[in-house]
């Protein structure tokens, strides 16, 4: 286990290195010049060259990348070109909000998705199953911006159950987490239904029923863990999928996460921020996947980590 963990952590570091390299390279070849954004419209060619030199952007790619990595090793993610602030500071200020939002979304989608999936599996073929199927497709097909605004309009503006956006308390979290999680819940409910149907047919469920166990217990203890196995891998994946969703959700709900930061940075080629956000999100995804892989053997003793 420890050996496995060390090996995976080393692999993860390599993955992050790979991500940093590809991202840095893509940003390098990207036809957009950050210096022009910095220098402004009235700058002379001289000033531009000067700034380019100051930032080391006139150096060859390898040197730039090596310098960036060198800084990274010492925990220095560089300074934003346009905000002139430490990227680490900017990200640190916003990361907790994003993590909280993702956590909320994961909980929301799991709770909604898994329970709907189980219900559909039990009521397989019935009217409830059919309507749940349609529901999950609606969830998957609905653009997040519209969902967010609708939720906001109904529950915050009209019903005043929740604040109209903002950050701070649990009630602030509910709507954005729901918005972000709704799409995933559609996926989860379909996946869960499909694997639950398989599991419910198995001999050991018959055994459990033969013991006279309560229906809930058969479902929750005997069927769920088996049915959930193929789904665990998705939790790691979700973090990656969320990355594009948070841009929209955070802006609709005024949630102070890194989505906004990333979006502005991409629009204006603020390379240090793009790099920083990319690496942080890559980290989250890699760790999420690692976690998913590590959970699996706890649920399924037949799988061994090697």
């Amino acid at each position, binding site marked *: 286990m420890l050996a496995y963990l060390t090996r995976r952590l080393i692999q993860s570091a390599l993955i992050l290195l790979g991500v940093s390299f590809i991202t840095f390279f893509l940003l390098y070849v990207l036809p957009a*010049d950050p210096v022009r954004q910095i220098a402004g419209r009235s700058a002379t060619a001289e000033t531009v060259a000067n700034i380019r030199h100051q930032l080391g952007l006139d150096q060859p790619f390898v040197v730039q990348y090596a310098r960036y990595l060198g800084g990274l090793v010492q925990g220095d993610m560089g300074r934003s070109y346009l905000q002139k602030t430490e990227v680490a500071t900017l990200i640190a200020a916003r990361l907790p909000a994003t993590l909280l939002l993702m956590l909320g979304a994961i909980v929301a989608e799991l709770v909604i998705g898994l329970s709907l999936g189980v219900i559909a599996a039990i009521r397989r073929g019935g009217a409830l199953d059919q309507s749940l199927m349609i529901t999950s497709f609606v969830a998957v097909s609905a653009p997040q911006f519209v969902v967010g605004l609708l939720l906001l309009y109904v529950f915050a503006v009209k019903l005043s159950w929740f604040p109209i956006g903002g950050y701070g308390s649990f009630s602030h979290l509910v709507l954005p987490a729901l918005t972000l999680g709704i799409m995933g819940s559609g996926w989860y409910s379909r996946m869960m239904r499909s694997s639950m149907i398989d599991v419910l047919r198995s001999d050991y469920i018959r055994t459990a029923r033969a013991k006279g166990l309560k229906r809930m217990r058969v479902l929750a203890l005997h069927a769920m863990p088996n049915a959930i196995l193929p789904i665990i891998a998705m939790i790691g994946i979700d973090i990656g999928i969320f990355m594009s969703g948070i841009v929209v959700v955070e802006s609709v709900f005024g949630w102070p*996460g890194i989505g906004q930061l990333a979006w502005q940075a991409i629009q204006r080629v603020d390379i240090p921020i793009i790099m920083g956000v990319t690496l942080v999100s890559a980290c989250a995804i890699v760790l999420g996947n690692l976690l998913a892989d590590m959970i699996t053997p706890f649920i399924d003793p037949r799988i061994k980590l090697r």
Partner: protein
Amino acid sequence: QDYQPDPNAKPGGNIIVTYKDDVATLDPAIGYDWQNWSMIKSVFDGLMDYVPGTTELRPGLAESYEISDDGKTFTFHLRKGVKFHNGREMTAEDVKYSLDRVTTPATQSPGAGFFGSIKGYDAMADGSATSLEGVTVVDPYTVQIELSRPDATFLHVMALNFSSVVPKEEVEKYGTDFGKHPVGTGAFKLSDWTIGQQLVLTKNADYWRDGVPYLDQITFEVGQEPIVALLRLQKGEVDVPGDGIPPAKFNEVMGNPDEASHVVVGGQLHTGYITLNVEMAPFDKVEVRQAINMAINKDRIVQMINGRATPATQPLPPSMPGYTKDYAGYAFDPEKAKAMLAEAGYPDGFETELYVMNTDPNPRIAQAIQQDLSSIGVRADIKALAQANVIEAGGTPKTAPMIWSGGMAWIADFPDPSNFYGPILGCAGAVEGGWNWSWYCNKDLDAMAAEADSIVDPAKTDERLKMWSDIYMKVMEDAPWVPVFNENRYTMKSTRMGGADALYVDPVSIPVNYDYVYVTE
């Protein structure tokens, strides 16, 4: 000459302003976004200032100034007893320090170029000097600025945020983080800044202008979607939605008399235009460019953006001095445009590309343009890209044949006609990495512009403006641009906001002149 404060105004109150984008920095040497522009204006002061709600200059930290006869030496007499937020008195040394700072390449100020006329600027720019030769401290309350050429716009430059006076010790204390810990002499000071959430300015009780500001506190909440901001405004949670009325809600708001009464409409020093790259065939033919000018149905485009603009005839917006009132521009006439194309050798039109920034409503406007062009046989492919990529394409030779300027368009830094020329129509901008995306370079006009800007005598202002008017008329003859519309400003405010409407459409303080507005309850 100065502004008469509102007699009904009473001090006190907190207001909430929202923005979608985060505030990048409050460093006056760096901040160049439209949401931090007015905040910096309230936290810092420069030697010059504008009368609230107008484009008229008035003295700021300088109590008075003198201009030498050759127009090359400016002597500013500073107000006494003006204190920075840290309590120290502002002196002439600070003025010099601030100007040195903004022009030093290490500062990476996007506004450094504005100071090009100060003597010694070139030495600063290439790094051979650490201090501007032309700026001298005569005594603690007098500073003298010598120019290398006469510059009629210099007083406007002194009113720019980039010229704000900053205290050396604070800048050195925070280094590059000064932008997050701004200290100035302005009406408000920064009291709290939670990155990504909000920024709070509180009243500077020691402000050197008597009676202002009225507000105790302004909270800027960032990361707010404009539609949501409007919902919050309607619920009374927000006082000013900084991004204005979102297009999707515009008709709804304006159609409701109750809500429309909270909207203040004003002009803006803005022009939306299409650049035609004169270095790329077939736009190297003036007939083609003129034909394009005639093909665009500006009324239709204005209708499409819910009439929030007026069709434009020339580069300058109507509220800019030097605007040529009786010029009708190229009339919409597709038939004639087609004929001209045929004359120029393109009877069947041609294929080209139209670059556009990818935020609403720009791709939509581009599609309207595309349709207009197709009616004269010009098939334009739309390339909707992120802002930075469009800017890059525009500044790269022979890359972008046409660019719709929306989202990146020129909003004047100061209300002077010269501001619409240099970087975007002059030869200086028609270089790799420049902002003259039509790559139009007319040496004669450049010379004329230089001549006009050397007329510093206030008595000759009309003559100067006439020269500028002529310059833009010549530009229109060569038609490197298609001026499409001048956007109007629609600022919305909560019921409790008080102050003259002009303060809500202040041409230099967008969206609101915070120093003079007040709350009524």
